[in-house]
């Protein structure tokens, strides 16, 4: 068996999620190759070559691959697909964008967001917002999979795989990249953060959300939000933790003013330690929190910042 892992990157840095996907590939077992599809992305390939368990890095460089347009990246993966038994993407915005396109072109099912590998053709994945875990078996010749990164500990670095430049595909010409607005901050990326501070509807407004900043700064935490807070316009969508947002499993998850709807719990209940601060002592979030504090968050959060 050989497994192709599609690297997640921005042409400069390899995203941490790739390490988790390599770990999932190692569980499946076989020769693990990583594809870096980008433009001027050699630094990314060099980083990928260091991940333990990777035997070869394939580097495809072309302006057509600079902006991760789904049509072009899918074409690049398809050019290699026949040589592999498994093709793995991270279950991130970009992985989910491309992976089903590859699968359908190969006339195979895609298996979404696996969180455990039972055997090379059998995997576990959450359904119904994490209220049930399904074990599914694929009957297809090539398994196209997205990997929920929190299900697999990141593969360590220490390897030294060969980097092979391969022919890059031409642009399919269906879509054009226009612009990107990236929120600028010094905080860690939510999906892989060791600490997360999350606010919910209880924050009351976008303005009030700012009282979480000093806490996140002190903890070195990424910022998150519940769907209710995103819906209400208090926080940007890419902060959303939950079934339809990001799935996180940090060392410490601090839920502030979050009631704990099922769909939110689905996104954070694998965190190592969960702290909840909410003025409603009956809120479901206390059912999963290791440490609950029934308090007015507008008093408790500043106090916490001072005490830490």
């Amino acid at each position: 068996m050989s497994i192709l892992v599609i690297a997640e990157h921005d042409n400069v840095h390899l995203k941490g999620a790739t390490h988790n996907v390599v770990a999932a590939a190692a569980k499946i077992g076989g020769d693990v190759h990583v594809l870096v599809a980008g433009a001027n992305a050699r630094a990314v390939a060099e980083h990928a070559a260091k991940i333990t368990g990777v035997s070869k890095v394939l580097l495809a460089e072309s302006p057509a691959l600079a902006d991760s347009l789904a049509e072009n990246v899918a074409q690049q993966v398809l050019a290699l697909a026949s040589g592999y038994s498994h093709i793995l993407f991270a279950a991130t915005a970009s992985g989910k964008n491309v992976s089903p396109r590859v699968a359908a072109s190969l006339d195979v099912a895609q298996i979404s967001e696996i969180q455990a590998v039972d055997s090379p053709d059998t995997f576990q994945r959450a359904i119904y917002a994490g209220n049930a875990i399904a074990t599914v078996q694929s009957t297809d010749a090539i398994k196209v999979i997205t990997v929920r990164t929190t299900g697999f500990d990141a593969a360590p670095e220490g390897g030294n795989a060969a980097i092979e430049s391969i022919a890059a595909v031409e642009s399919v010409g269906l879509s054009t990249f226009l612009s990107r607005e990236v929120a600028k901050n010094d905080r860690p990326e939510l999906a892989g953060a060791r600490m997360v501070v999350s606010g919910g509807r209880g924050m009351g407004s976008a303005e009030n959300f700012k009282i979480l900043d000093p806490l996140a700064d002190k903890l070195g935490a990424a910022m998150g939000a519940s769907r209710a807070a995103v819906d209400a316009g208090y926080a940007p969508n890419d902060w959303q933790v939950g079934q339809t947002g990001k799935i996180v499993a940090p060392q410490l998850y601090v839920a502030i003013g979050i009631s704990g709807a099922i769909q939110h719990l689905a996104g954070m209940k694998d965190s190592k330690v969960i702290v909840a601060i909410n003025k409603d002592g009956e809120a479901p979030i206390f059912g999963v929190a290791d440490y609950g504090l029934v308090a007015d968050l507008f008093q408790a959060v500043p106090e916490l910042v001072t005490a830490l």
Partner: protein
Amino acid sequence: MKVLVPVKRVVDYNVKVRVKSDHTGVDIANVKMSMNPFDEIAVEEATRLKEKGAVTEVIAVSCGVAQCQETLRTAMAIGADRGILVQTDVELQPLAVAKLLKVLAEQEQPQLIILGKQAIDDDSNQTGQMLAALLGWSQATFASKIELGEGVARVTREVDGGLETIELKLPAIVTTDLRLNEPRYVTLPNIMKAKKKQLDTVTPESLGVDVAPRLKTLQVVEPAARSAGIKVQDVAALVDKLKNEAKVVV
């Protein structure tokens, strides 16, 4: 131009499903069913494009059991002009749905197909991308804004770390994210009107599509439960626990 909007009938957002005791699936007998929330956003967006005059007809499609008619009626109450039901009792997986929609797209020739990014039952997040692949069309997933131009659609997408805007050649596939719009409440007069709208029924066989599942579900179990911890009295006690018991902060 025509817009096609596929809609899925799923267990209502507010229902907490239970795993069946024989572990063959979740128990959906006698639970409330509704339109997948992301599909509602898709119908709303198509309807708004029509109200703006950019679109001439909105066609809702649903694939599944006979009761999906109700989902189609809801789509028509929001604003879809007519509905097509692909009726089958077979468990439909995303690849099969994409194949059914491909045939309908070839028949109806829409310039745009708007789908929900993900259904809240199987949480697959696949059908739109698969349909784009099968049709050889451009795609923009996780849309928070759609603008139609001459032969193109400009779509702003929710990506990790922010937003990106891409331009698609039409015909195109767009999948909706949460912030694209807030679907309207359907009013009683519109529900009554929707009952009179055209609803055609076809089958996978009549469309010539093999919908046999490719993934076999071996078992479905409850997730490992996380037990509740303790409540602390005040911030000082919380900090003490975090430092000395959990040791997650120093």
